[in-house]
């Protein structure tokens, strides 16, 4: 027999932890991606099919490098969170759920950082 109240026993349990923060963060990234995607398309679309020298030269503009780095940082996190929601919705076995969530994180972090690395290398080393 404990003298703790029912309220004290359940406090901190359940889903009322950081869900609102997570939800708001997802929306914030979505909103940020609206202008970033427009900038990304305006910069990258005309570069597809151009020769190496033209592509390298266009990255000498800091606006291009910085906005593309921002785009890839926000979009890889958005991709990771989005893919995780899809995995959680459709995969029901606990083992493959865990494996897929880990694989998803590895995949998104790898490609996100590869993008930032490539942009920085082009910008600084040509």
């Amino acid at each position: 027999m404990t003298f703790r109240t029912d309220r004290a026993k359940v406090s901190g349990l359940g889903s009322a932890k950081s869900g609102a923060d997570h939800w708001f963060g997802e929306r914030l990234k979505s909103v940020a991606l609206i202008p970033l995607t427009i900038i990304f398309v305006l910069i990258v679309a005309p570069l597809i099919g151009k020769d190496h020298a033209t592509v390298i030269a266009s990255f000498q503009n800091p606006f291009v490098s910085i906005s593309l780095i921002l785009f890839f940082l926000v979009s890889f996190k958005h991709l990771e969170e989005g893919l995780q929601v899809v995995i959680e919705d459709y995969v029901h076995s606990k083992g493959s759920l865990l494996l897929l969530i880990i694989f998803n994180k590895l995949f998104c972090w790898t490609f996100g950082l590869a993008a930032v690395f490539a942009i920085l290398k082009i910008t600084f080393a040509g």
Partner: protein
Amino acid sequence: MSKRVKGNRPLSPHLTIYRPQMSSISSILVRITGVSLALGFILIITWLLAASTNVYYFDCINSILTSWFGIIVLIGSVWALCYHSLGGIRHLIWDMGFGFDLKIADRLGWMVIIGSFILTIFVVYYSGVLL
């Protein structure tokens, strides 16, 4: 306690048994385009990595991307990006609590579908890959 929760409970209506509607189809397409954009993400980052490595790798990736197959995948990715962006904006409008009226929801759905094709044509024309 945990036994009672499991049981053979009725499930919420899933895609397979749900009558397709404007709002449900246009919404699931946001998810499908989002997942397939992972491929576009890989493609464009491979292109960037090749550009950062040297001109030979770049020419190799460039010739794949500008082959007929590469162009089809790229245009598909552009459409997926346009659709996902417009559909995402519609979901943001819904998240703010507007546009739940059936008529408005339907109209928003058509705007997303038609808008995605118009934007795709604009981006493909602007990129000059087909010229």
